[in-house]
């Protein structure tokens, strides 16, 4: 059955509030908030606000329950074995930095961290910093000409010195989906941990994180149609139990004496201080709402739109797609250049047509180097996009090319 896109759009408050033309194609940067998440956020802040995990009065108890329920909803969406595997964070960047800190003791001089040229800066810089702190090496897997992780490079990339492999599940620039199975197998064979940046994967449907073969998986709520300010870090339980805390403070302890502290069990051990309660509850609501959608229909819809976008771009003069041109193992994130026109000028002019796209290096400067450029335009799709959005982009681009090229 085909997707009722108009119905889906009614589940997103912004589409009834911004007058047309409004073609939001910057979903890889942030998705729009769904009504379920918006209502959960405002419901908590206006009628349910109290701190969590400590208060015993009814309002605080309800907030604690809502927070725990959000964890459970996110765990179910991710396919975690248990809710306690989910640490609630402020987003993917925080999650990856948390991972880089709690894994520090497992890394020594001469050890290697393996990343790739496909990564967002959030999955590069924390590992660079960790490598410098521990005297370890950082290596990067290559990328194919069409912007996919070069798995042929894997045998050279992973060896006995590799302790951590950190890769994106889906590129925020090319939309390419990483086949994690062979990476997980090679990592496991040398005893390395596999950390996955899932920020761009999670808006495209529920997953079975426990079956991916990874050890740690980071995600953001705002990219999966929740509020900004919340995220999650899934860690395989057997590993999580053994990890030291990251930040110290309230809520992460069992008992504190001046001399020493006994830490709380996971996930609380990793959640020092007051968490972003409202955004976390909103993320849980978004996860629950997403879980109820027809993902088969959404996948077919997104694939059809991606095809329309790619085909349209290929017919425009001077447009170069930076990423895969096929529909295999990819989501609808498409980066491109217009010859002789800077990405920001393209985006600025598209804005006059109500088309919202992102221009720049997309926090992926090493990947821009692979493509021999410094900045691209990126259009990224969500389930609520329709053919009119793609067509508006293509028509706007024709105008840009006529005016500026």
């Amino acid at each position, binding site marked *: 059955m085909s997707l009722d896109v108009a119905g889906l759009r009614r589940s997103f408050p912004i589409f009834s509030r911004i007058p047309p033309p409004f073609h939001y194609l910057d979903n890889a940067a942030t998705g729009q908030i769904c009504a379920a998440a918006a209502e959960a956020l405002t419901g908590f802040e206006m009628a349910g606000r109290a701190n969590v995990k400590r208060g015993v009065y009814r309002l605080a108890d309800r907030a604690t329950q809502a927070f725990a329920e959000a964890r459970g909803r996110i765990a179910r969406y991710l396919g975690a074995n248990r809710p306690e595997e989910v640490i609630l964070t402020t987003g993917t960047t925080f999650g990856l930095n948390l991972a880089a800190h709690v894994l520090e003791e497992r890394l020594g001089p001469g050890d290697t961290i393996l990343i790739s040229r496909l990564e967002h800066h959030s999955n590069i810089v924390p590992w660079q910093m960790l490598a410098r702190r521990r005297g370890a090496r950082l290596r990067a897997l290559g990328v194919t000409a069409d912007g996919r992780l070069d798995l042929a490079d894997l045998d050279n990339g992973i060896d006995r010195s590799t302790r951590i492999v950190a890769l994106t599940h889906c590129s925020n620039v090319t939309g390419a989906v990483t086949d994690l199975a062979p990476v997980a197998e090679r990592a496991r064979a040398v005893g390395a941990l596999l950390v996955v940046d899932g920020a761009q994967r999670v808006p495209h449907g529920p997953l079975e994180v426990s079956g991916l073969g990874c050890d740690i998986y980071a995600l953001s709520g705002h990219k999966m149609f929740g509020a900004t300010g919340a995220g999650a870090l899934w860690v395989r339980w057997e590993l999580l139990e053994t990890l030291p805390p990251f930040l110290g403070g309230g809520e992460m302890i069992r008992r504190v004496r001046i001399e020493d502290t006994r830490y709380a069990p996971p996930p609380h051990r990793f959640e020092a201080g007051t968490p972003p309660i409202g955004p976390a509850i909103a993320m849980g609501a978004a996860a629950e709402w997403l879980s109820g959608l027809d993902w088969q229909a959404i996948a077919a819809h997104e694939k059809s739109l991606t095809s329309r976008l790619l085909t349209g771009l290929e017919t425009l003069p001077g447009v170069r797609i930076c990423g895969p041109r096929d529909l295999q193992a990819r989501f609808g994130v498409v980066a491109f250049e217009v010859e002789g026109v*800077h*990405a*920001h*000028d393209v985006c*600025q*002019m598209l*804005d*006059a047509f109500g088309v919202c796209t992102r*221009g*720049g*290096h997309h926090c992926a*400067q090493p990947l*821009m180097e692979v493509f021999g450029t*410094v*900045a691209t335009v990126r259009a990224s799709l969500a389930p609520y996009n329709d053919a009119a959005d793609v067509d508006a982009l293509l028509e706007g681009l024709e105008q840009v090319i006529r*005016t*500026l090229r």
Partner: protein
Amino acid sequence: MNRDLYNQRIIEAARRAREQQPLDAPDIRVTRDNPLCGDRITLDLQLEDGRIAAIGHRTRGCLLTEAAAAILAERGRDATLQTLRRVRDDLARLLAGEMVEPVWPELAVFRPVAEVKSRHECVLLPFDAALDALSRAARETS
């Protein structure tokens, strides 16, 4: 708004920037990046008695950065650090939406950019590079 932003004078200035060259023997060379997009200007200056005697540049950037670099290269000769500070200050005020008449009238072409905060850095980048260069030269001679 966007059509004002991409008016013909900006487009023409940007095209002139692409014809301008770096200097063969600069007294000082600075490179400055725009973290928003990775754009980069490499600015060359020759100096005489604290004044700019010649300007060259290589700019890899958007139309706004290119146009700003072109105007700087065309108007900057004879400017001192003090002059350039005033020019940059005028430009910043213009971008903040103030009704300032800039000391270099050509800079008024950037008035429509005031509405787009995220692009202010694009216009300021060449001027910040020039201030870096002149400040460094002043420190080295003092």
